């Protein structure tokens, strides 16, 4: 097991190196450069200033030189300085990560609490009224554009009813823990819908697949109650693939939710990424994307390890 883990962790190094080359290339291939943001405000800009700006940022150098400079610094643990804010990329990411982790954590919590029972109950009577409604709801959840759903919830719960705040993480100057929780409800719920829809469908179909499995038949033949069969045999086995999907989705925790964070003015990584993209803030983009890549790789490993925990037949060598 430890040998397997070590090997997988070592494999990350060339993988991340390859990923860094690809994303650096893609970022550089996008037309336009950081100097575009000088003109974005619609002001006249002195051309000498544009040249001076490009020189300071080093974007006047060949792409290969820029990459090597970036790589040298990154290996030493320095992700560089953001073009648009002149601040360290590491600090910018560290500042935004907690907000994203919190929002995604709440969304995952909502989703797990709702999706698993939904899938379980649906699987008990496939085609029944509950299952039909849940299926319809899931497809609606998957199909609904997040920005639209978010705005509609704002209109209902904030503008009309006045129950919940529209956006932000707290009432500025008058924030409390309760106030903060109230700010989390709408974005957390909006973000959870796609996970609820996906996970509940997945869990339902896995459980249905298991209903006719030999070991379930045997359990029933032993005289176990239906509740015990469900608890001990089908649900535990049905969770294996769902948990691995959840673990893969956990990588989203770190990359943020671009649209939800924008619609709810949530100060997370997703919004930072959008700002960086529009400003062609290459170091910041590299930092965020590399972190995203690393978390996907790590959570793939976590998913694989979870298989082993849930299914004793799986062994790692």
């Amino acid at each position: 097991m430890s040998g397997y883990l070590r090997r997988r962790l070592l494999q990350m190094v060339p993988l991340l190196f390859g990923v860094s080359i690809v994303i650096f290339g893609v970022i550089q291939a996008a037309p336009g450069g950081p100097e575009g943001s000088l003109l974005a405000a619609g002001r006249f800009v002195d051309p000498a200033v544009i040249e001076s700006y490009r020189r300071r940022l080093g974007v006047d150098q060949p792409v290969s030189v820029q990459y090597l400079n970036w790589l040298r610094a990154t290996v030493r643990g320095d992700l560089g300085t953001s073009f648009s804010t002149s601040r360290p990329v590491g600090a910018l990411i560290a500042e935004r990560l907690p907000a994203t982790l919190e929002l995604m954590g709440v969304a995952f919590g909502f989703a797990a609490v709702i999706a698993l029972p939904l899938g379980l109950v649906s699987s008990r009577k496939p085609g029944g009224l509950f299952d039909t409604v849940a299926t319809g709801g899931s497809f609606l959840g998957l199909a609904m554009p997040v920005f639209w759903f978010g705005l509609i919830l704002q209109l209902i719960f904030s503008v009309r009813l006045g129950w919940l705040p529209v956006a932000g993480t707290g009432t500025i100057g008058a924030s409390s823990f309760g106030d903060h929780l109230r700010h989390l409800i709408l974005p957390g719920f909006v973000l959870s819908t796609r996970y609820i829809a996906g996970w509940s469908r997945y869990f339902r179909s896995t459980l249905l697949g298991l209903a006719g499995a030999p070991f379930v038949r045997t359990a029933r033949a032993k005289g176990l109650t239906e509740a015990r069969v469900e608890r001990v045999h089908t649900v535990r086995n049905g969770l294996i693939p769902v948990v691995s999907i959840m673990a893969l989705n956990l990588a989203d925790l770190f990359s943020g939710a671009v649209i939800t964070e924008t619609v709810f003015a949530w100060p997370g990584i997703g919004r930072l990424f959008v700002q960086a993209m529009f400003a062609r803030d290459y170091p910041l983009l590299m930092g965020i994307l590399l972190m995203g890549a690393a978390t996907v790789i790590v959570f793939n490993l976590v998913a694989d390890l979870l298989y082993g925990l849930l299914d004793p037949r799986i062994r790692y060598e």
Partner: protein
Amino acid sequence: MPRSDGKKILRVAYEREIDLLNPFTSQNLVDISFSKIEGLVTTDEHNQFVPVLAKTIPTKANGLIVANRDGTLDMTWPLHGNVSWHDGRPFTSKDVCFTWRFVTNPASETYNREQYLGIKDCQAPNDTTVVFRWDGEYAYYDGLFEAILPEHVLGGMTAEQIVQFEPYNRGSQTIGTGPFRFAEWKAGEYIRVVRNDNYWRGKDYPKIDEIVWAFIPDANTRLNALKSGQYHFGRILPVQVKDVATLAGYRDYLIPSNSVMHLDLSIKTPNGKALFADPNVRRALFHVIDKKAIADQLMEGTVTIANSPINPTSRFYNPAVPVHPVDPGEAGRLLDQAGWVVGGDGVRTKGGTRFSFTILNRAGATDRIAVAQVIQAELKAVGVEVKFETLESAAWTERWRSSRWEAVVSAWFLPADPSLTGLYACDGANNMTGFCDGALDPLLKRSDRTLSFPDRKRDLDSVQVYLAESARTLPLYYNVIPELVSSKVGNYRGSGTNFGSFWNLYDWTLAP
């Protein structure tokens, strides 16, 4: 409105998170910075420069501008004497000269650095007098130095170090002389400033205790936030104005911005040159485009039609410029005369060239794209094919700068002074169209190098007429910035210049 424990807290739903607080190097419009940082001048609601740290704006008439024999000018700015920085140190004329040295250094990355280059020397004969020596007359001298930097904080650094100096960029040492002091910048969320109790205008100013700018980038969310009553001020889109017409407790102001939506054609590409080099062809196109329909229907009557790049709020606006009335018949005649005849597929051709061009659109600029779509439909009726290419903002800018485009629907955000030289002179830094006109250049350049209002007005009047007659560009409408302001806010005097509506925050009041 959230509770505020007896304090008067102004809550602003702001449209973006700014990048940094140094007003010279920020790439955003810097209206937030002006709550903390003041300059010699700012602009008021009438699109005029007004003195701030300067006691008065020098003119020849008040004797503060004196011509020297060698053609240079000495310009004396008297400064207020009782002004201190937020850390208690006195503000003096030396800070002004320090700012001049910083701004003119290319490494300062000040966007309008070239406008300062006519100043050859800065002298501080005493703490409250600064004297600039100009290399000659320069018309927009009175729009410079909208901010002054503190020498005692930034003085020991190179320009490059100042540009990257985080304590000033980020707040903890953003020392200014303004009515509010920096308090907090929560990344991605808000900037908070608090009352400067030692403000130089006196103990009665400012009249509110705190201001919070919450960053709410999505326009629909911002509208919902305003509708929910949690904010006192926010900018919305023209198409959202009808949504707030009956919103209780707020008033919406359509601030005429110093920005004109226009259609530009370029002759820098071979196709652009083949199509647009003939002024009669350009006139023909302009006879087809119905500005009134665009203003009244597309923009829902929130904007006014433009015939000149200069805004009617400017004293340099010429109301008597010729217009191209909507007349598809005349357009057809002009195109026929120019040899563009309708071909089998309904598109005009001349010598094997189809009259087909591409408008370069900026993704997400929904108003501009909608205008382009109207133009596309209208030109189709006279046998002109318009295609679209849509690029994301940075990519659009790169293409625009490299002149690889045929047409754009675009807008500039101009300062209160309407110099048009950068846009239309042959060597204008922002003239990417390839048009170069020997008759226009002398007028433009002369208009920049005079301090006489009648002389400059005469030249700029002629420039506006010339631009219309030669169909160089088609002004479509003057942009407006709809600002939604709580009726609890007093003394708001919205300004449509690039310095924004917060120019007189020291005077704003907030009823409980």
